[in-house]
């Protein structure tokens, strides 16, 4: 269980996260959404203690992440695919992480097999494609067989087979009673695998409800509901290259 309470993060005069409160419960997949720059990654980094909150708390199973005796067994984290030294092989990277906790080498082989990395496990990570890097990130998150998983854009760059695999994986993990917090920009993907969504914009909570409830409220798809909810909180918006008469999704208020 992840509990985030009145979380604030400021960098100088910029406020990245502004009094955010939500809970991700065991046995559910919680989708974490918001426009670019909304504070999703910052929030996830604060939950796992990489960045210190300016105010508020973030706990996992009631304890601050840094106080956990065996963080890898409590929380599996995949923050971005490039969390590995480009000169190190996937096997070595995972082995080093495992050794901090005394996790046996056999478990490293196991997660490599689970994520389909066997053919490239002994190649340097700098040579990986985006999808392979993503699989390595997921392998690292699964290493400690944790009760809680935090996955930032896990399907980014994966092939269709990989997307399907991640969808099944997170459903299975939740079915086993684990907590899964998953961020994504792919609405149809989240509609398929999330039970609940937490939507934030400009560092603040915009919605926190079961997927079906949000969809019913808007009367359309999850994507339409998301666009309605975040319309006022989008910070970076592209424009059409041709005439301004075409209405793009972002303009529909």
């Amino acid at each position, binding site marked *: 269980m992840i509990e985030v309470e009145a979380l604030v993060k400021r960098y100088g005069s910029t406020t990245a996260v502004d009094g955010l409160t939500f809970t991700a419960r065991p046995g559910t997949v919680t989708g974490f959404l918001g426009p670019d720059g909304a504070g999703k990654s910052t929030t996830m980094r604060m939950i796992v203690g990489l960045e210190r909150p300016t105010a508020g708390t973030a706990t996992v199973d009631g304890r601050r992440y840094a106080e956990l005796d065996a963080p890898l067994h409590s929380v599996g984290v995949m923050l971005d695919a490039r*969390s590995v030294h480009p000169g190190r092989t996937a096997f070595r990277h995972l082995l080093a992480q495992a050794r901090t906790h005394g*996790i046996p080498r056999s478990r490293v082989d196991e997660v490599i097999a689970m994520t389909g990395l066997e053919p490239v496990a002994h190649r340097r990570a700098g040579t990986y494609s985006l999808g392979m890097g993503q699989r390595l990130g997921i392998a690292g998150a699964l290493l400690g067989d944790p009760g809680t998983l935090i996955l930032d854009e896990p399907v980014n760059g994966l092939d269709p087979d990989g997307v399907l695999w991640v969808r099944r994986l997170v459903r299975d993990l939740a079915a086993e009673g684990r907590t899964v917090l998953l961020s994504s920009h792919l609405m149809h993907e989240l509609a398929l695998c999330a039970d609940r969504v937490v939507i934030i914009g400009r560092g603040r909570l915009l919605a926190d409800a079961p997927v079906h409830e949000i969809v019913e409220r808007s009367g359309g798809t999850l994507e339409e509901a998301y666009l309605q909810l975040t319309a006022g909180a989008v910070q970076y918006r592209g424009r059409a290259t041709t005439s301004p008469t075409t209405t793009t999704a972002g303009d529909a208020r």
Partner: protein
Amino acid sequence: MTTRTPATRVSFAGVLAAEWTKLVGLRSTLWVALGTALAAASLAYGLSLFAGRGDGPTGVSLVVAGSVLAQTGALALGALVGAGEHSSGAATATFTAVPRRLPVLAAQAVVTGAGAGVTAAAALAASALATTDARTRAGLVLELADPETARMLAGFVLHLVGVALLGLGLGALLRRPGAVIVAGVILLVVVDQLLATNPGQVTDTLRAALPGAGARLLLDDAALAALDAASRGPRLGAWGGGLVLAGWAVGALAAGAGRLCRGDVTR
């Protein structure tokens, strides 16, 4: 999930094993070690060719003659361990596994020290081999039982270990390997040369307080005496110089630890 993995927890021995796995799992480590040994041996060989005229060097002073180049390799090793973590993005994985952070730096200090020690020993062996001819020609013997010789050989290793730890501390502090290399070379070489152009009580005292004072560990007694006689600053002797370097390494590591513990791990 097929099997529940047995419950384990973070231990310092585990963190140490992890850092060792990371160090030896990088090709750059091997290249730095090889390059250091090769550079030291080449310089020792080159200097041994020119030696022999004038006041005669001792056998051991030829063997440790590559230290000026070798210290750059040790600095690079420390910089790669300390700053590479952050510049490559691997810090995210490292510090989610060990969120208390400080054990990682402590373990890095141990493995960097060990790596630098092994590299220094390799550099000494290579230098001894490279200078064999010159030493036999000049009739210089390498008497390991001689306390001065033993002190100089151990001093070579200790100096390199100290410089590597200084690099590690600066790496944890600055988080960019390039910045560490530039700062380290300025501290170890450039400032000393600048001060040497204006000898005086103030500049000599400052020179004695620079991390390069660690190189006194590997100077022979005659050179040390000459150095102390010429200096208007404090007379450090060999071990005093080593202590100055140790102070710099500890200071840099403390500053690095401060940033690591108080600051954010960002990309």
